[in-house]
């Protein structure tokens, strides 16, 4: 029976689909059960598996090729088995990431991490074998193979993300086993039905294991655990989505999140009422109201009440509704009109339609609700007396960090009425130095709007755990400062800065003693009551030297470097490790990233050195090896750098990281897959094709560097579907072009053992790319990442392998499918 070319590649499509789906499902598992920064480690395990498979296939190419048909038929069953067993043991792994922060307890956790490698590598190694074997057996049409690989990956990403709306994160893997097993039915050759039968049996066993004995559950130190196990706790509603798995809880621990004065009793103000609690992936994101009238009697005693005392009957722009409570608070404090921004989709839905028994906000002529983010909202017409960022806004959604950038704060200031106030929250409970960083950002924003003396336009006041920074377009006058000081004094808040303040004199009357410490020496440097923030505010607002600037990264947060939780200076790694225990959890991601990068570099170097170990096996050409070891790595790095840049920009454009990620990942994979299918046709004139591809890539990078951000900012108010289409339209040209260099380069190397090695090299450097791009973005900004990508494609153009002229290689190639 004749086997068509396409049928032979359908299994590859399905395996690629399932592999990417499995990887995505694992990152969801880690986000839900552990914490999401450890999802990075998973991705690196994936890539290690792929890189190893490339190396093994490179070293034993002929042996694999000879048994290729049988292997391709047998692998689906093995893949199903290793996927299921791997996931099962991943869920039973007692890894507790919290114990990594204590030197006395981290050793067993390192063994648990090793356990993840042991149970996950087999699947990814075998998937890599399948994919690179497909390349080897179809060496005459590499472009088509690469195309099926990439489009399979793209479709897999899209499918699993769509499945997340319907299936809980812990049950995605059982779903993905189906296409994995199905791939056996499309394998060409006489082993097909044996392979399909084996895959069927494996599927039954695997589904039984994962469905009947699913061990996945929350780490018992996630925020949801305790509330869920209090007497009479109930889960009232759940929402599944790629953004996260949401749960609405009714238990006695749930109350409004507010920074309320400790003197509330003295002020005759009731405490915050009981509420429902909304959790996403086990982390608490908001309090939702119980049925009945919203009780906000506590509002006047809370830290965020001051602007409303300064400006009665204000027209307010409120970022973050806190489940509706902040709206009620702001109205109770005297606002005349509130435009509410709630970009978190489930929170917005809860306001508009309710969630389970939590009621909707209800019609109110004073209030307008919108799902926009502040960056978009302030660019529209309209001006506000008060722009208020809620204290839980930053952590409610990843994309909300953009509201704290220099550009956003400057736009906010420009949208204020004369004498208007911008109110910015900072949590100082874990790390007071965040307040100094936001002050530096505020300073830059004030300067950007033409203010000459930022210190005159800023006040800072705080409780024990939270600070508020108030900026105004007019200097703070004596009357307002008097109101501020009285407000704080009544509530046991402290004023850390007002224009003309003497921090030394203020020490005598501090309510919330916040001693200064030296991160470097590990000593408390205060001698008596102190306000560590007040000590350094004047210097930060004047851009002068100050101890925290030496110890921490206080660079302003910008759209190019929109990382809020990035105060650690990675060039002081030894100090950081000494103080590991004092670090807030949000900062740990950067350290995990470094660990992954170190591992990735080691693997990549190992793959690079393979030809030195076994040069005869690879049958290296006499010349041109140097080109190869630069060309393929450059491609691996360049593609991912562009992808990571685009994910960030898409997050800004769509104001949502999850949809940005999904759209860019799927879009780039599918379009580059389509592009690479054209490579076979262009193989006749490879030099012209590669020049075209690289020029398009470099040209696109230059255009994006200069024009993309303004374009994004100008179109933020367009409907979501239009912006999503724009994202795809921007992605398409570069992705189509980027599908070409890899298959073209492979075709140039002939069909020798170099093919799997080149594939492994590309994969190994893709492993390096993600943590490296994250590092560059954190330290220098996303535009540097894109610039590096442009340079990499220039390098690729220059090192494009020369065509293999020698006929000696021809007889070593395996006959292609078409010849059978």
């Amino acid at each position: 029976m004749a086997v068509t070319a396409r049928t032979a590649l359908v299994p590859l499509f399905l395996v690629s689909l399932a592999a990417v789906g499995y990887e995505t499902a694992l990152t969801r598992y880690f986000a839900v059960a552990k914490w999401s920064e450890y999802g990075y480690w998973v991705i690196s395990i994936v890539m290690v598996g792929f890189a190893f498979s490339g190396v093994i296939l490179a070293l034993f190419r002929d042996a694999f090729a000879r048994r290729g048909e049988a292997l391709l038929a047998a692998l689906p069953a093995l893949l199903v088995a290793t996927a299921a067993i791997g996931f099962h043991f991943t869920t039973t792994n007692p890894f507790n990431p919290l114990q990594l922060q204590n030197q006395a307890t981290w050793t067993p956790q390192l063994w648990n991490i090793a356990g993840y490698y042991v149970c996950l590598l087999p699947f990814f190694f075998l998937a890599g074998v399948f994919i690179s074997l497909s390349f080897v057996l179809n060496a005459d049409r590499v472009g088509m193979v690469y195309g099926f690989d990439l489009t399979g990956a793209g479709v897999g990403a899209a499918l699993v993300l769509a499945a997340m709306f319907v299936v809980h994160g812990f049950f995605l893997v059982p779903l993905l086993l189906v296409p994995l097993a199905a791939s056996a039915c499309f394998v060409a050759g006489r082993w097909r039905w044996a392979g399909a039968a084996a895959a069927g049996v494996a599927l039954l066993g695997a589904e039984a294991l994962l469905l009947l004995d699913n061990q996945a559950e929350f780490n018992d130190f996630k925020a949801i655990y305790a509330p869920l196990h209090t007497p009479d706790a109930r889960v009232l509603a759940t929402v599944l989505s790629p953004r996260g798995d949401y749960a609405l809880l009714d238990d006695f621990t749930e109350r409004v999140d507010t920074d309320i004065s400790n003197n509330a009793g003295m002020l005759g103000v009731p405490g915050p009422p009981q509420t429902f609690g909304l959790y996403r992936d086990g982390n608490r994101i908001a309090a939702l109201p119980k049925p009945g009238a919203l009780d906000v009697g506590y509002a006047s005693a809370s830290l965020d009440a001051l602007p409303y005392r300064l400006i009665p009957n204000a027209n307010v722009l409120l970022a973050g509704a806190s489940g509706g409570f902040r709206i009620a608070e702001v109205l109770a404090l005297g606002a005349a009109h509130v435009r509410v921004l709630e970009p978190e989709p489930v929170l917005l839905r809860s306001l508009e339609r309710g969630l389970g028994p939590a009621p909707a906000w209800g019609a109110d002529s004073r209030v307008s609700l919108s799902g926009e983010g502040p960056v978009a909202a302030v660019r529209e017409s309209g001006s506000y007396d008060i722009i208020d960022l809620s204290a839980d806004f930053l952590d409610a959604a990843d994309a909300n960090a953009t509201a704290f950038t220099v550009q956003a704060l400057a736009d906010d200031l420009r949208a204020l009425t004369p004498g208007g106030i911008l109110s910015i929250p900072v949590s100082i409970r874990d790390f007071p130095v965040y307040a100094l960083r936001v002050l530096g950002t505020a300073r830059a924003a004030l300067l950007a709007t033409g203010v000459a003396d930022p210190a005159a336009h800023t006040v800072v006041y705080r409780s024990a755990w939270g600070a508020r920074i108030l900026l105004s377009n007019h200097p703070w006058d004596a009357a307002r400062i008097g109101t501020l000081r009285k407000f704080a004094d009544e509530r046991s808040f402290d004023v850390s800065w007002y224009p003309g303040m003497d921090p030394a004199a203020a020490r005598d009357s501090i309510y919330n003693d916040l001693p200064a410490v030296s991160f470097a020496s590990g000593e408390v440097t205060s001698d008596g009551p102190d306000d560590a923030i007040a000590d350094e505010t004047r210097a930060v607002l004047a851009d002068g030297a100050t101890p925290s600037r030496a110890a921490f990264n206080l660079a302003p947060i910008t759209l190019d470097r929109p990382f809020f939780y990035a105060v650690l200076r990675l060039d002081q790694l030894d100090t950081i490790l000494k103080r590991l225990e004092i670090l807030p959890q949000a900062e740990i991601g950067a350290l995990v990233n470094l660990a992954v990068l170190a591992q990735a570099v080691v693997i990549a170097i190992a793959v690079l050195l393979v030809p030195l170990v076994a040069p005869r096996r690879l049958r290296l050409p006499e010349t041109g090896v140097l080109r190869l070891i630069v060309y393929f790595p450059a491609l691996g790095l360049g593609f991912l750098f562009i992808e990571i840049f685009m994910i960030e920009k898409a997050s800004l454009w769509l104001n949502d990281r999850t949809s940005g990620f999904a759209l860019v990942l799927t879009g780039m994979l599918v379009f580059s897959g389509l592009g690479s299918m054209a490579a076979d046709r262009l193989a006749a004139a490879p030099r012209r094709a590669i020049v075209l591809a690289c020029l398009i890539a470099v040209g696109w990078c230059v255009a994006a560097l200069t024009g993309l951000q303004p374009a994004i900012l100008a179109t933020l108010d367009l409907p979501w579907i239009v912006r999503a289409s724009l994202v795809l339209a921007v992605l398409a040209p570069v992705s189509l072009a980027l599908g070409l260099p890899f298959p073209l380069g492979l075709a140039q190397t002939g069909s020798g053992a170099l093919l799997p090695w080149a594939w492994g090299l590309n994969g190994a450097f893709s492993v390096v790319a993600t943590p490296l791009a994250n590092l560059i973005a954190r330290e220098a900004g996303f535009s540097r990442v894109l610039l590096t990508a442009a340079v990499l494609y220039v390098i690729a153009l220059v090192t494009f392998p020369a065509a293999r002229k020698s006929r000696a290689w021809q007889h070593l190639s395996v006959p292609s499918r078409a010849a059978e």
Partner: protein
Amino acid sequence: MATSVGTITRRGVISAAGALCLTRPIRAAATWTRTGYETAMNASGRPVSLTDAQFDAIQKRKPAALKHIEAYLKERLGAADPAVMAAFEAVPREYFHYIYSERRATPGDAYEDTPKPWGLGYGSALSDYLGQAYMTQVCKPSPQDVTLEIGTGSGFQSALLSRIVKQAYSIEIIEPLGKAVSRIFTPLGYDNVHTRVGDGYYGWPEVQGGFDVIIVTCAAQYAPPDLFKQMKPGGRLVIPIGQPFKRGQVLYVYTKDDEGKIHSKRDMGVFFIPMTGAIARTPAPHTVSVVQPAPAEKPATD
């Protein structure tokens, strides 16, 4: 149930008898023996058996751990409060090493050379003994005090305080943990520890006169305002902040001034040592003796 396998022995019969008499108190402190440990564990619903060698190994480590605590407190706070040291001497820490979610005793972990936190299951942890000593001393407990703890956890903190103060109250919000831990104090003869499972937000309003020391180990976004109402004049409310597997926590210590206004201090003594010279100015803690548990009925002998 971790029991020794095999024939019925006198020890086995007595252990079984102990398990049946669940509220029978055992005299502790003066002579803490392996049998005393096992009987108390049985009475608390957590049966276990140890060999003499295992028990002795734990006791051998204890003096070094106490010395370590003493040096630690001296370094960080200027001097080690004798009441705190006496409490650590009196309270057998191995009794509190128990993984409730697995119903498994882990006494062999007690008094480890490198102090570390231990997971107990149900999202709770037994903090390392240095951090606990620090927090106990920061609370400044004295014999007439009445203390309240929100977040019983292992019960070790309340047990320590109960050796120093008059009455110790403790509330646990996690039901399975709270129910299990509520049974462990009586077998030791600690009759001044009172526990309940439920919402600690309003404190323990039935206790007249309020509390001298309040510890809140499960705080959310703010210190519950109602707890300040239950703070006696001169009292302290202590909130440890941070995930439980670090080496100790940052403590926020709240006090009330004469006007009734609340003051707070961020105490980072677990992570940051005082500058040289600063310690000399810290007043030394006052000397008090440890409360002995009420004499029990005649205990079972081996």
